[in-house]
């Protein structure tokens, strides 16, 4: 009897442990997925942080790669947003800057966040950005327009079958979120100064 009660508790505790672990695993899927995406270039994800790789000194002048730029405004955000050039040709390893023009057409200040995505997805890892407007929130006052640049190079290791890379930017309206965040920050500052 006593022996059985004990082993029963053991089973319950072990099962609960599995439950807790698997709940954690559900959340662990998030960073795991991001690692997977980084390694395999799933979903054309390209970082919203500057690449750690140093700008290459060697330019592969034998090869040309077409780089196209497309833009989308999520939920018809009342902005105007277009690249200044639609398409350029670059050598792998060559560092280039391309400007995008954004204009806030609404009558209030808005904050946008651009999300980059590369096609073909698996080649995203070879697309290296050293500077990008997508690394930060982009606030624009009512009616304000701004040229925003992205500085990038293509990793010279890119497989030779790639001839065209498409870089897509989608602007999302994050005005509310940015406001909430800065309010919180203000409060924290207040608390700290008090």
């Amino acid at each position, binding site marked *: 009897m006593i022996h059985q009660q004990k082993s029963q508790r053991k089973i319950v505790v072990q099962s609960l442990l599995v439950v807790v672990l698997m709940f954690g695993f559900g959340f662990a899927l998030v960073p795991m997925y991001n690692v997977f995406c980084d390694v395999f270039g799933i979903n054309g994800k390209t970082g919203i942080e500057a690449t750690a790789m140093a700008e290459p000194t060697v330019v592969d002048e034998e090869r040309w790669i077409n780089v196209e730029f497309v833009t989308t405004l*999520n939920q018809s955000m*009342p902005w105007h947003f277009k690249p200044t050039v639609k398409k350029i040709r670059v050598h792998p390893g060559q560092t280039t800057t391309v400007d995008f023009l954004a204009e806030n057409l609404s009558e209030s200040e808005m904050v946008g966040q651009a999300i980059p*995505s590369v*096609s073909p997805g698996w080649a995203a890892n070879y697309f290296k950005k050293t500077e990008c407007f997508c690394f930060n929130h982009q606030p624009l006052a009512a009616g304000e327009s701004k040229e925003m640049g992205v500085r990038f190079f293509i990793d010279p290791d890119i497989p030779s079958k790639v001839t065209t890379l498409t870089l897509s930017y989608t602007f999302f309206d994050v005005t509310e979120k940015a406001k909430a965040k800065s309010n919180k920050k203000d409060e924290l500052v207040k608390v700290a100064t008090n």
Partner: protein
Amino acid sequence: MSVIKQCLVSHTLLLITMLVAPFSVLAEESKFNMPRGVTEISEEVYDIHMLVFYICCVIGIAVFAVMFYSLLKHRKSVGAVPSQFHDNTAVEIIWTLVPTLILVLIAVPATKTLLKIEVDREADMSIKVTGWQWKWQYEYLDEDISFFSNLSEASNQARQRASGIDPSTVENYLLDVDNPVVIPVNTRVRFLVTSADVIHSWWVPALGWKQDAIPGFINTAWTEVKEPGIYRGQCAELCGKDHGYMPVVLEAKSQADYAEWVKEQQRKQEEAMLASGRDWSMDELMSRGEKIYTANCAACHQANGEGIGMFPALKGSPVATQGSVEEHTKLVLNGLNAMPAFGAQLNDADIAAIVTYERNAWGNDVGDMIQPSAVKALR
């Protein structure tokens, strides 16, 4: 009642046909089966589909034949005496190995085709496809062409609840749009698929694939259509209320016709520019407004302007009857909460027409109107 009876009779016949129809008939008749399509990929996909289908039929028939033989012969009522065997290693090994071999047989062509679908080769032209609640936007990257593709007006009227219009009288009911996407034949076309709100899925069965449109991300798919024609499909991923009402219509034209079409589009865009410059009469704005309203606004605010659920009524609303026409226009241009901004989707004349219509339809009688040039100034 007699109609239903008639229907029942004809459908019972259909049911019988369905059950006894030889498989070769299934393969030919598109009402029963996947279309073979008009691209190399779609044909390969179809062949794999048929191969796996036939394999499944053979397996199914073999298993059921053994089982039904047993059901007939090994029943107590015919005096069967149960044997007591419960194991047979040889048989068990065979029926593990044979399915494995069959799977390999399927995997070989499937792998080949899949690699072909996903290959990234230089395309001759690119079209960006953006899914919206509930329409598609097409942007031709190499030409200056960009347009929205909405459910056609005839379908849109007939599909309203209790519209009184018999769908069978509407040509291509729910599979027709105002502006189809046009591509040339025998040209490798790349589609860059994305979304501006929720996930959609762009699907034309004749091309042999569907591709999800995911907000913030871009997906690539390509096609090379062999024969000119009009190919119809639908959004395949649940994307909200009007998911069933955003068809995809793809028109493949000969190279020459395509070039002609491109010119036509450019001419139309110039016309629209001109139209925005001139002054419009009230009647013009009202009649155009009704059309544009039906295509863009009626899904939420309803054709009668009375709104539904969380979507407010426009009939008698303060914005449309009391506020200034400028405020009203800005709201349409920039959106509010759940309402999208239409500034990027519609040109000045369209916005002017919608606002004028909303202020003067369904018993709203403000009497004022706004000119396209004034809309332009508000942008």
